[in-house]
Structures are given as C-alpha cells and as structure tokens.
C-alpha cells in the first residue's frame, strides 16, 4: 500500500501526463455485487479432457485405443463413481469434497473440423459463433465494457503472454510479476514520458508500466549498466526457475484481494501429441498448483466470493495415436473452482463413447457450448442480464437452462 501511495505522489509530481495516468482516474469502489471475483485461465494447446477428468464409469472409455490404462480410479482420484481425476490433479480432491471444485465435460466452442490451435484459441477468446465475423476484441473485455464502476484495476491480464480474451475498448491492466522499469532516473522518466507523447501505443504502455512498477522504480539509477543488467536477469531467472505460474497466481491473488475483480492468464503445454502418460502430467500439476495457490493467496473470505474457470480451445481425439498421444479433437473439458462455486459435481449431458456416439467417429461429442457456462458464471457473479450476455458478450449464443453453477 505504501508503495502505491508513493507512486501516486511520484506521478503527481511529474506533472506532465499525470491526468492521463490510469491510477489517478476517479475510482469508485463498488460494494455488494462488486465483491465477486472471476479468474479465467486459458489452457493453450488443447487439454485432453478425457484424460484430465476420466469417465471411467463409461464402459466405452477403457475400450478406446490407449485409454485402458486411464480407466482406473483410486481412493485419491475417484470422485462420484463415474468420473475420476487424473493423478496429477489428485491434490484438488479436498476442494471437490468441500464443494469448491467442479467440471463441465463434453463442452466446446462452436469451432469445428479444422482443429487449428490458433483458430480454436481465437474463437475461444473472441467468443463468437464463427471466425467470419469482425470480432477483434475478446469476450471478457466486452463484458468489462458494461461492468458497473469499471476502473483501471478492475481487470488484470497477468503474465508475459498476450490475450485476445482481454483485448478491447475497456481498460485492462496488464502486468507480469517479473517486470519493472528499473533503469531510469526520475529526470529520465520525465523525458521518456514526453517522448512517448503522440504515439498512443507507446504512451499507454509506458504510462501503465510506470504505474505498475514496484519499489524498483528509478532505483537502478546509481548502478552501472552491468549491475542493472544483472538485476534484470536475476528477476527473470527467478520467474523462470520458480515456475512462473506460481508467481502469476500469487500476483493475481494479491490484485484480487485489492481493487481488482477479474483476472485472466494463460497456461501452456497441453498439446500432447506423443507419450501423454508423461507429457500431460506437468501441465496438469501446474493447473493444480495455480488453483491451490489462488485459494491460499486469496484467503477464505475472498476465496468464498471467487470463481475460477479454466478452458481450452478444443478437446483431443477419443483414441490415442500410435505415439501414445492424442491429436486435435472437438469436445473437451472446463475446470471450475472457487468458494463461490456450487461444486462437487460434474455438469455434463454425457454423450457416451461408443463409436457412433463420437463426433465424426473420432472425438468426444460436444453436448454444450463452453460459452454457456462462462455466460452463466457472469450472470451469477456480476448480475448481467442473459439478454446482454447473448447479444453483446457472446453474440448469437443461446445460454439455455441455468446449470446452477454458483452456491
């Protein structure tokens, strides 16, 4: 808090563009409905939902090529007699028991057949019904554009990756825990601000970087270049080695405990074309660590007002390929967590896994739109009308019946 105050004073002292600084825009801290939190995690690379949440109770599952070894449940992974967790998610079972973990299975965006990561992710994040529209912004940003009392820190895109999900007219703060403006003197900062004027892209980025830099702002001024480079390097290495995902969860939790209500970030590494028994373990462990990190970082009170949802561009083939991996598919899985969730259940209109029940005889058949679940979360957490969600956030979506996601 101290450093925020200092930064504000510092910015005010600079004079030049202080009025445009996001930190100094009038802020209304909404109460009531404005207390709920939403975290959206994009799982890039297409998570294999059938392996992450295993429908071992479906006899067709073990019959699928390569899936027999997955069709087992232990005390640590078994959930409800039909689904079991991948062992790398077993650490989340206490959340399931507490009603703080749930899943939507056999879901997808409307994207079909070409199975391209890039198109699939664009569709997932733009939130449209097809790729032909001129949707250049993300669905979370379109929601933010109507968020009551929106201010510069309401929403955070966290981490080094850029997210179409958050792109658009509504202001979104964007920061990575390992970043900072370390190399400028106060006078250099003022001159730099002046240089950015007239180029809106640079002006906005620099202004935001200034506002977000931690205590390191301007401190490196007395060091030699070599020492400053070493500091940059140390910060980067810490992020790389400690697993950046843990820091990202910590940073997101810190912001959500403060003035922020929405955070989004990405987790990579889900494209398991080969040797899935090994390659899927690491990204699932990361996801588990992130959810547990958010829970401990937010603390009971705020966690109770939080919903976390993790989604991916599409699922993977029902059968494994010749390399013990799976290829790009269709129906997939959404992972939901949070104290605000009415969890301990799997929402699914289960399609079955027999060959005729598969999509194109190869993929899990999607039975509900990913966007419907995201839509109902927004409805429940922030009170948006379904008409607004179906018209503006996800144009053309029919949200269908209320699945009752929230406690």
């Amino acid at each position, binding site marked *: 808090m101290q450093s925020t105050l200092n930064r504000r004073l510092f910015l005010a002292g600079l004079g030049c563009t202080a009025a445009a600084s996001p930190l100094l825009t009038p802020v209304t801290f909404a109460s009531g409905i404005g207390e709920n939190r939403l975290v959206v995690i994009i799982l890039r690379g297409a998570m294999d939902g059938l392996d992450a949440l295993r429908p071992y109770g479906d006899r067709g599952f073990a019959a699928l090529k390569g899936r027999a070894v997955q069709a087992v449940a232990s005390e640590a992974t078994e959930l409800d007699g039909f689904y079991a967790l991948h062992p790398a998610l077993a650490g989340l079972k206490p959340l399931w028991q507490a009603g703080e973990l749930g899943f939507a299975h056999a879901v997808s965006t409307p994207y079909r*057949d070409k199975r391209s990561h890039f198109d699939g992710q664009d569709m997932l994040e733009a939130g449209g019904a097809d790729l032909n529209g001129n949707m250049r912004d993300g669905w979370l940003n379109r929601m933010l554009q109507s968020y009551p009392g929106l201010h510069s820190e309401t929403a955070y895109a966290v981490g080094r990756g850029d997210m179409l999900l958050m792109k658009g007219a509504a202001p979104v703060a964007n920061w990575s825990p390992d970043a900072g403006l370390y190399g400028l003197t106060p006078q*250099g900062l003022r001159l730099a601000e002046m*240089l950015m004027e007239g180029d809106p892209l640079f002006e906005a980025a620099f202004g935001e970087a200034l506002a977000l830099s931690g205590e390191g702002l301007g401190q490196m001024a007395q060091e030699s270049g070599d020492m400053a480079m070493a500091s940059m390097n140390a910060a980067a290495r810490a992020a790389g080695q400690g697993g950046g995902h843990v820091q990202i969860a910590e940073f997101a939790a810190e912001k959500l405990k403060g003035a922020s209500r929405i955070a989004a970030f990405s987790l990579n590494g889900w494209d398991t074309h080969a040797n899935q028994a090994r390659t899927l373990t690491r990204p699932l462990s990361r996801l588990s660590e992130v959810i547990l990190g958010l829970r401990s970082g937010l603390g009971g009170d705020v966690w109770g007002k939080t919903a976390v949802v993790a989604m991916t561009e599409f699922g993977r083939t029902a059968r494994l390929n010749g*390399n013990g991996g799976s290829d790009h598919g269709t129906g997939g899985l959404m992972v939901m967590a949070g104290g605000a969730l009415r969890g301990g259940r799997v929402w699914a209109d289960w399609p079955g896994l027999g060959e005729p029940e598969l999509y194109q005889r190869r993929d899990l058949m999607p039975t509900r739109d990913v966007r419907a679940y995201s839509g109902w979360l927004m409805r429940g957490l922030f009170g948006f009308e379904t008409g607004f969600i179906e018209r503006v956030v996800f144009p053309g979506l029919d949200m269908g019946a209320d699945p009752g996601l929230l406690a």
Partner: protein
Amino acid sequence: MSFTREIAEIRFGTGLSPRLRGPRDVDDMMRRLAGPDVMAQRYRIESFEDFAKRIARVTALWKIRRANRGSEEADKATQKISAQKRKARKAQQLWLWQALQRRAHTQDGLRERLAFFWGDHFTARGKVSVMRRATSPYVESAIRPHVAGYFADMLKAVTAQPALLQYLDQKASIGPTSAEGLRAKKPKGLNENLARELLELHTLGVEAGYSQRDVTELAELLTGLTYDQEGVFGFRPDYAEPGAETVLGKRYGGGDATLADVHAALTDLALHPATARHLARKMAVHFISDSPEPALVAAMEARYLASGGHLGEMTRAMLEHPAAWAPEPGNVKQPIDFMGSALRALALPQEIEAFRDWRKIRNTFATPMRLMGQTWEEPLGPDGWPEADSAWITPQRFAARVDWAMNAPQALGELPDPRALLTGALGNRAPEAVGFAANAAEDRRTGVGLIFASPAFQRM
C-alpha cells in the same frame, strides 16, 4: 513516396549505421541480395549438416550407456551426454551473437531480415535433447540459401530438415498399412500435424478452401519423410502409406512411394493462387504495416505468380511499390530487430572480446529478449512470432525495452555522444522531441537510452 536510404535501411534492412552507406536504390538492394553472402562467411553459424554430428555423438553415447547399463562406463556416457547438451546450449547463445553481429555489420540488411522472416514462417523447434538447439543451423541450411529463390525450393528444403520433422511430429507419422505400420509391435499411425501446418501456415493459409480430407490425404502422402539417429534426413518407402493420395483434387503417387511424389505436391502447393495471396500479404504485414494497402499485396501476389513462385521477385515487387516508402513511421521492431539496429547504430567494433563468453551473451541479449516477449528461438507455436504492434508494446514488454536501452549500451563499450547517435540512428527521420531529450538528458547513458526507447527508433 519513393526510395530513401533511411527507409531502405530502417524498414527493409537492419537499421541505419553511422558508418555503412546503405543501398543507393532498389536495384542496388536487389543486387546485394543476389550477391555473395558475406555475413554468413564472416560470422559463422553451424550448418545443419555439422549440427547433425552433435546428434550422432549423443546417439553413440546412448548406445554405450545402454550396452553397459549400471557400469562405470555408463555413468561416464551419461555425463558426456549432459556435456553435449551443455555445449549445444552454449553454441545457441553464440549463434544469437553471430546473428546480431551480422545485423550490426552487414551491407545487405535485407538478407538478414528475409532470413528471419522466412525462418519464422517455417518455425521449427527441436523438442528433445540437443535438437532443441538446432534452430539456427536449420535456418542457415534450409532457409537462408533460398530467401531470394523459388518458394518451392524452400518448401522442399525445410521438409527435409530433421528439426522441422521433429517439431511437427512428422518423424512419428507412419503409414498405418505401410510395411513399418504392419510389422511394428506397438501400433503406430498417422500424425497429421505437419500436413495441417503445411496447408494452414506454410502455403494456402487458413482462409483457403481445403478440407479435413485434404489434410489427411496430404498426411498420408508425407509418410516416409523421416531422419535417422544420426540426424540425417531420408525418405523411407517402407514408412509410406501405399496408394495414391488426392490433395485439392489432384492425385499424387500410386506407384512405388518416392520423394518425388511428395515434391510434386509441394510444387503444386507453392504455385497455388491461395499460397501467393497468403505469402504476399504476410510479407507486406511483416515489413510494412499491420494492415497493408491491398494494391501493394495484389502487386506482390501477381509478381509471385508471374515469376513461378520466385521470392526474390515478390520482394522486388514490394520494394517497387510506392506504398513501401510511405514516410510515416511503420511497424514496431521485434526485439531482435530492436537490438540488432541498436548495435548497428552504436557502430560496434568488428570483434568484442567479452562476447566470446556465452554467459555475457545470455545476460545482455537472450534474457532481456525474453522479457521483451521474444524468447529466442522459442515462439509458442508453429505460427511463430506475432506481427501486431500491440503484441509487443505492452507495459511489461516495453518496460524491458526501456531498461535494455538504458543499460545495455554501456555494457557494450564506450557510449557515444547522444547528439551524434541521434543522426547516426535516425538520420533525417529524427523527431524534434527526441533531439530535445537527447540534449536535455543529465548524462550520456540516459541520452543514449532515450533515443533507443523513443517510438521513432522503436518503429520502422
């Protein structure tokens, strides 16, 4: 809007240099591009053929390890494998430095830019062991020789590269009813990854009208492309799915499986009108603007088709179009462009002793590049680096550029006078505000840093 030396160097080269004159006109640019590859001779990067020897060494060590399991000899082999991996990792850093020096000292900046652009178009990252460090050798062998040649030749070259075959899982793709598919104890099968990316990213583009069927048939046609444990490419007919394959309505193969069948399909894909459109637009977006003038793209597309898919001709068509020389600041430089052009503006000496140390290269370039959003040779997906300016100039990424601008120049040598640097780096394109800041800065370090951090220098 016509040729200027500044724009030629800044937008189509590796930046202005206070020492090197730069091209006189478009013909001169093209002449340099067609001439000998001077920088490749002076700042060597291993060819993939040489890199493959590293793979062969590691394979031999693995064999020793397996044959002597549990013995001291096996432990020694394990240590040697680790040492090979470390060596390759260091070599990767040295090749980054070589690439930057090429940018700093070249008289033919267009070649460096094209090699990067096409290398990114055919993004490949080895996935395991020393192959993870193979990207620079891959680009050196398969991309660089073809940047001003026929696209079909580049296509044939990259699809014979182990790094790409590993990255897009082609090594793992076996015709299900091929001899290998039938004799294998473990079931093996088709992997569509390379076929899909060939159509979507490398040739037609995702908007073109092709179907899942085309992807699958092309994947079947590509079976047989593989490489051995020594990292040497080969076509294995016993891996190839028997029978003819129909891609975009045309039949390929049907007799004994040969590499020529694959090459016939690649040649047709290279000459497809959708490919011309896709490549022309992509190149215009990379060099000129995130939303290039349709007339410019159309001119490039037409020249590509008229020349039988010649990339040099398409490049020339771009340079001959007035829209290429619009005086307004253009695209944001990617981090590699930014660093290379800063080194060039600083007029580095030909050899800097300290940079023989790979750690110094990592700390001064590779790690800052990661913070700028461009982890060297590790883009997130086969679609390579983003082109949109807004992808690069986010608060945290731009903060990393500012910090590098402020700190790296003095780690590289004696700082220039900011006023001289201003002319050297921006020529007649230096805005008044940058001149003011360079003068007003309280020390040289800040003055130099501000010039490099300015939007005028950050853009092309």
